[in-house]
């Protein structure tokens, strides 16, 4: 990858040794790191093994020519964003047009003028930098899973039915805690808390879909299906509680009050997808199951337990996790009382 001085990792693909050496020399003089490949097949092998910033591709080559390389790159999920500058002495404008249509970023006639080469490479790398930045932005405000889903299937409002587990979690008496300390300290606390919780959630295949103050909503099983999502969600919850125990040791050492969290999990069918407007939307899950998970989380305060789950989640766990039945609870907005189960937090796997 590019370092701070703007040196890029480039791949030169040309079957002709003189061309290869000459191009590599020009690029090295410009401060870049260069790898060489003598045909398309070797180039693709290298591209799938190492990370490059840009490819300079000849067209006329034995074994696999430049057109075939361009076709393969376009259809490769990991490589289709890689900028390619075609350097060739192709005869016929239609061949040049074909390169561009196949996704080449630019075309430079051979012998390549070093000044032009420098300008084109600079422009290509800058465009790539902007694209990378954009992707990173999407990843920061969505999740890697949602970002990937967006990249693969594009954006459209609306949802699809999925089987998943939803988790709500928050810090108990957060408002009291926030009022007792300066806001800067609360932000620090939240950031550490988020980092710990995100880690536990995503390491079990969960996706955080909503952050509100100290509250988090996560889904296990969407946008990508997740086998065993009920148990994954419960394991994540246990890890979250363990993390808070460790975090509290640190806080105690710094003479700060410990925090406790409450987690509610429910499983079943729900609708997952993008809600909002075309300008501003969020990935979310909607359905009775989601409401139930939120109610379970609120109920942790009433029964003074860390993790509460519904019957569907409990059934999927089998005997692998120790669970205590707390009996039916009449939740607001539910016609029938709901069976509630408590998961012991500190259980080792």
């Amino acid at each position, binding site marked *: 990858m590019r370092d701070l001085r703007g040196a890029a990792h480039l791949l030169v693909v040309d*079957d*002709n*040794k*003189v*061309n290869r*050496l*000459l191009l590599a*020399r*020009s690029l090295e*003089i410009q401060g870049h790191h260069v790898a060489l490949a003598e045909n398309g097949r070797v180039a693709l092998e290298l591209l799938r093994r190492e990370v490059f910033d840009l490819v300079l591709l000849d067209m*006329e*080559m*034995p074994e696999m020519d430049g057109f075939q390389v361009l076709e393969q790159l376009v259809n490769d999920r990991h490589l289709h964003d890689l900028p390619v500058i075609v350097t060739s*002495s192709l*005869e016929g404008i239609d061949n040049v047009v074909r390169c561009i249509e196949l996704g080449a970023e630019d075309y430079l006639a*051979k*012998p390549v003028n*070093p000044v032009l080469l420098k300008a084109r490479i600079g422009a290509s790398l800058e465009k790539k930098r902007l694209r990378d930045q954009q992707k990173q932005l999407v990843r920061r405000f969505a999740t890697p899973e949602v970002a990937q889903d967006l990249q693969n299937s594009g954006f459209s409002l609306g949802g699809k039915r999925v089987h998943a587990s939803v988790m709500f979690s928050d810090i108990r008496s957060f408002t009291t805690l926030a009022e007792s300390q300066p806001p800067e300290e609360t932000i620090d606390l939240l950031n550490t808390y988020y980092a710990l919780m995100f880690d536990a959630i995503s390491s079990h295949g969960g996706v955080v879909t909503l952050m509100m103050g100290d509250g988090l909503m996560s889904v296990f099983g969407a946008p990508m299906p997740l086998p065993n999502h009920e148990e994954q969600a419960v394991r994540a919850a246990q890890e979250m509680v363990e993390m808070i125990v460790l975090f509290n040791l640190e806080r105690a050492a710094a003479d700060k009050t410990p925090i406790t969290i409450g987690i509610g999990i429910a499983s079943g069918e729900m609708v997952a997808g993008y809600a909002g407007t075309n300008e501003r939307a969020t990935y979310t899950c909607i359905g009775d199951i989601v409401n139930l998970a939120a109610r379970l989380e609120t109920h942790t305060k009433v029964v003074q337990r860390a993790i509460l789950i519904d019957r569907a989640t409990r059934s999927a766990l089998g005997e692998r996790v120790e669970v205590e039945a707390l009996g039916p609870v009449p939740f607001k907005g539910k016609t029938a009382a709901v069976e509630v189960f408590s998961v012991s937090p500190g259980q080792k796997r």
Partner: protein
Amino acid sequence: MTAPTIDRATFDALKATTGDDFALELVDTFLQEAPAMLDALRDGLAAQDADKFRRAAHSLKSNSNTFGAFALAAMARELELAGAANVAANGAPSLEALGQEYARVAAALGALRHA
């Protein structure tokens, strides 16, 4: 043929942009590789292997331009455009003429190398 065997301005520009030592090494590489290209042209023509013939002509054209061997480059380009099947019909230069021009280029590059 009005084009010079080696265009000095092009050759000097190559040396200036890549460095004298590198340019001379590149000459050596070309002199090592070019005979194989000439062979590939002859084989491609004899076997009527259009791809092999076109690629060899293309490489020779490209390299000749790099060193300012514009007459050789022009001949190679005509062969590339004519193709193995149409060399005779299209009035493209014969491979003998191409070989003679290459010999002049090799001699001129050799002289520049020791200049």
